[in-house]
């Protein structure tokens, strides 16, 4: 239930903080399953877009706010974030992290320091904002329910 993250060489204080926040901000990953109930550190899911999506909100270890979106059957299909620290993209992307890394390595960038868009057939990641104001989203384009577009992910 609680997915604790342990950094073996962290100091005790840092470990306590990370364990605390990892357990209170437990979330799954793209392609994973959104819990039905509220978990510690995350709001209860509520439906949006006439039930097409479920969304719940949480704060991660870096004090960044994340919205986790799932289909009506609970499959997690998107994350949006906003906050002072970049979220743990690798954890959020789950099994799609490899695809994203491949896209990032191959990307010919726009040359824009403060924004990027890595679009793969299976996952799209947009990341931006100034330092201290990170904002972005990641989603599974093939899993968006009918009638839902990326613009609906706030």
């Amino acid at each position, binding site marked *: 239930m609680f997915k604790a993250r342990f*950094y073996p060489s*962290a100091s005790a204080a840092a470990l306590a903080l990370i364990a605390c926040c990892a357990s209170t901000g437990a979330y799954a990953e793209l392609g994973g399953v959104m819990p039905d109930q509220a978990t510690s550190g995350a709001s209860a899911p509520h439906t949006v877009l006439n039930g097409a999506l479920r969304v719940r909100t949480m704060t991660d270890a870096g004090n960044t706010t994340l919205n986790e979106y799932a289909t009506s059957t609970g499959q997690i299909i998107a994350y949006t974030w906003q906050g*002072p620290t*970049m979220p743990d993209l690798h954890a959020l992307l789950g099994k799609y992290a490899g695809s994203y890394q491949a896209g990032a*390595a191959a990307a010919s*960038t726009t*040359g824009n320091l*403060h924004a990027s868009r890595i679009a793969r057939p299976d996952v799209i990641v947009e*990341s931006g904002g100034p330092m201290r104001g990170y904002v*972005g989203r990641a989603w599974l384009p093939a899993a968006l329910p009918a009638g839902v577009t990326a613009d609906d992910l706030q």
Partner: protein
Amino acid sequence: MKSALRFYALALVVCAALAACGGGGGSNNSSSTPSGTGSSGGTPSSPSTAGTSNSNQNTSVPQSNVANVQPVTVGVSPGMTRNMLTTSVTICQAGTSNCATIDDIQVDTGSNGLRILASALPAGFSLPAMASGGGVASECAVFGSGYAWGSVRTADVRMAGQLAAAIPVHLIADPALPAAPTDCANAGPAMLTVASLHSNGILGVGLFPVDCGSGCANAALPRWYYSCTSGGTCTASTQTVEQQVTNPVSSFPLDNNGVVIDLPAVADAGAASVSGSLIFGIGTQANNTLGGASVIKANSVTGYVTTTAGGQTYTLSYLDSGSNGFFFHSSQFPLCGIWYCPSSTQAASASIAGSNGVSSTVAFDVGNASTLFASSNNAFGNLAGTSSQGFAWGLPFFYGRRIYTAIASRNTAGGVGPYYAF
């Protein structure tokens, strides 16, 4: 299990004490006032009495006659990156005249702190590392476009007649460091080379005196500061505000409350090159007074202002010389990839509003990006593209304007920062 419960209880207490897991980033910079911030051992900086009050607008700002005009240019940049505003920065071994001048450093009001590729320093030019825990301080600087991993070192930074003495700077891709920790490397594409940075480094002269703020002093936030041992292990760690990578302007003895970027206008079809000025200080000399500029107060934690355009409101808005276009989501313009490409240049208007209730209406153009990119010009005043969230007023907004960026908690005749004015 009993020890685990006690452990968890301790963690809860720690979290409660911090009021928010992670400590929050950047809040309340009034405690990190100008005196000595980032200049450990350097000359006591800033007689400007920022931080004593948020409301006084008439406390006199110390005047200066120190040379404060730094030339900046837009021209050919690595990878044919357009609208890349750059300058040359002189960096010295603290307290000495052993210096190196590094060209092609990107001028960025969207970040804070000086970052230079280790490979751009002359051979044999070394800067002292900074101790952290049982190792040396290092940082994962995360941008929208990727991460820059490097060591934190101490240096004098000189521009125009100004000196930021013994401030923390970021040495990107420092070969003396272990590779970026996994959680850093997973933050996005790597920006560890000239090719990926499109420059030799970044001069962050934005709204804050240091890059992270009190959040990193209070907690070992992920994907910010690390301590790296000689054994090759890097662990997330706290970093005091004084030891965080520092906006050099904030550490000047005078002319330290912000900057003015003054660029000439650019024709519709663009320009091969643009030359302008990065002026240090706001209202400290005859060349940096606010004049009739509107002061648009920014959010004191995030630096955001609000833009309204095309009937839409964008609450995540910022003025960013480090973005190379106007970036905002709109259905009004056709797209070519991520860039807008209307068949003819379109006139648009928007209003930019601050938390002080002041708003300013601005006119801007959206050109055909494909046509612009097909030209050999490097500076474009009407280059625009889409963004999922927010409205970034990138370098095109700076052409033909004087844009003031006031540092948080620093006093100016227009009030206390953070704010933009134009």
